[in-house]
């Protein structure tokens, strides 16, 4: 480990005076002083006064906090944090994160690092439990659910948070945010007030805009949010409509994922209903594309949780066409469309 990592690790355990740091580490006074100065400039470390003593501590920001947490987790698992900071390690790790599973050659090619360096990185990751082998020949690996991988994702992956929809008329002014748990953790760190997390009773004071945060595991993009929200009343009456009118939905990708999850009938039917209320919302070709992939071998309920309210009498036309059992509140959908068009 280098001085930088050592300092962040030590300060992660609490504020320390400069003399305490000097007594704990083997580096010269000048070297420590320079490193601390750099860390202060990076906004990771700051000075505080406790009585007569001047102490150094991690900054009160998310990055410093997560870095300290990462280094502690790394060391406790026998992983040198300095290795995590290496450029080739980061590139290899990001490639595996994005690709899911890769051969050694693919990692090397993507990262631009030599085969031998990549080999060294990957074997070390395998040894430390950060990666696991999925195939022997050629050697193919993927990341594990190791705590250090989770913390690295929090620090290195920026796309975990997605403000997919915003509402102009709220109680108070409110926007909905979908995010991975890591991204939501960052939000909790940065925002003390005006935050509501779905399913959790936070007693925070209200501050506008109020952010209503919904955790999603895995990738957070418009299609993922759409497929999650289409199975909820608020989703079909507002969120999915917002996603469509904001032009965020890629219909080919939506179809591909809906097909994988057996949701083509439901999604296609929904798009067809939207188009029937407001023709300009959904292109005719899009509805037709979904129609060509309807699975008539099963009849899913849409929305299952609203089945207890019965039907209203308009459903038959769409049920026959899309092989679904419909329980939607058409008035709610109309209201949702009207509010954005």
């Amino acid at each position, binding site marked *: 480990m280098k001085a930088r990592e050592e300092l962040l690790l030590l300060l992660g355990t609490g504020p320390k005076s400069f003399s305490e740091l000097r007594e704990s580490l083997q580096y010269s006074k000048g070297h420590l002083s320079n490193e601390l100065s750099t860390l202060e400039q990076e906004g990771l470390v700051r000075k505080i006064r406790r009585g007569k003593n001047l102490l150094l501590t991690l900054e009160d920001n998310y990055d410093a906090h997560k870095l300290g947490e990462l280094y502690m987790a790394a060391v406790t698992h026998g992983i040198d944090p300095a290795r995590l900071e290496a450029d080739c390690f980061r590139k290899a790790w990001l490639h595996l994160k994005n690709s899911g599973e890769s051969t050694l050659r693919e990692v090397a090619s993507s990262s631009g690092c030599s085969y031998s360096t990549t080999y060294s990185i990957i074997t070390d990751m395998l040894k430390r439990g950060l990666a696991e082998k999925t195939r022997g020949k050629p050697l193919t690996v993927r990341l594990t659910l190791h705590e250090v991988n989770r913390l690295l994702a929090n620090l290195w992956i920026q796309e975990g948070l997605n403000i997919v929809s*915003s509402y*102009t*008329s*709220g*109680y*108070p*002014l*409110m*926007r909905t945010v979908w995010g991975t748990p890591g991204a939501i953790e960052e939000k909790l760190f940065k925002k003390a007030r005006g935050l*509501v997390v*779905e*399913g959790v*009773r936070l007693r925070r004071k*209200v501050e*506008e*805009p*109020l952010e*209503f945060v919904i955790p999603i595991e895995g990738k957070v993009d418009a299609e993922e949010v759409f497929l999650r929200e289409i199975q909820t*009343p*608020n989703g079909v*009456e*507002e969120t999915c409509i917002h996603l469509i009118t904001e032009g965020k939905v890629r219909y080919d990708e939506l179809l591909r994922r809906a097909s994988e999850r057996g949701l083509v009938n439901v999604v296609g039917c929904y798009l067809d209903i939207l188009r029937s209320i407001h023709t300009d919302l959904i292109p005719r070709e899009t509805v037709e594309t979904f129609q060509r992939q309807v699975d008539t071998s099963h009849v899913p309920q849409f929305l299952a949780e*609203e089945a*207890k*309210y*019965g039907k*209203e009498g308009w459903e038959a036309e769409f049920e026959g066409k899309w092989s679904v059992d419909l329980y939607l*509140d058409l*008035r*709610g*959908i*109309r*209201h*949702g469309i009207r509010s954005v068009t």
Partner: protein
Amino acid sequence: MEDQSVDTLEHIAEHIIVIGGWAVRAWARPPRGLMRYTIDIDGVAEESKMGQVESILQEQHLRREQAEWGLRFRKDYVPQSQEAKGFMKTWKDPLEVRVEISPTRMYEADGEHFFEFEPHETIRREIRSRGSRQPLSVKVPTSQYLMANKVGLGADYKNRYDAAILALQADLEQVASIIVSTDKWKDIVIRQLPRFLGRTRQPTDLAATLLEENGYRTSSCLKGLAQLKKLLEEGDLPQAS
């Protein structure tokens, strides 16, 4: 933002009955003191006044839009104060003041069923924006009429939130009488109320969350809605005058 909405409303206030967010605002007093936010203007007007309302809004340089059911206008919100400009930087999405004025008889999409606001069943109340401008006196329906309309609308979280608040103060027998006196509105309400109740009872429901955030007890609000449902199911209600 609300100041600009109220500024626009002031020009047409004498010619319309305000419904929607501003009307609920006129009636609601949340325990935590945080008023229901709104920027849209919803109202109804007698047929004879629609032309005048339209002229006034056009003179105020609002953009007219097509709407089969009445008048629809929009205007971009332009932040004036430093605070508002700062806020818009964090909000990032454009905001508009939207004005929708319908006839007093509001038809459903099927063109057959309707709800009607009675011009004589209104009351003057003050609405206060959260900005710095003076309160504005407007005509709003009674809380009974507002609630009777709300519970027949779509069961989205906004309507459920409004209905829940109104249930705390409206005379529920009068609400029920209004509902049964209006066309086939009772059939629609009987169908919608179970959704209003059922959705709001869900642990992660947004309307319930927002009610609690503003200091309301969701259970008390739902009690009122349940009582209304019972009144309608039992029948034997006097017709509203």
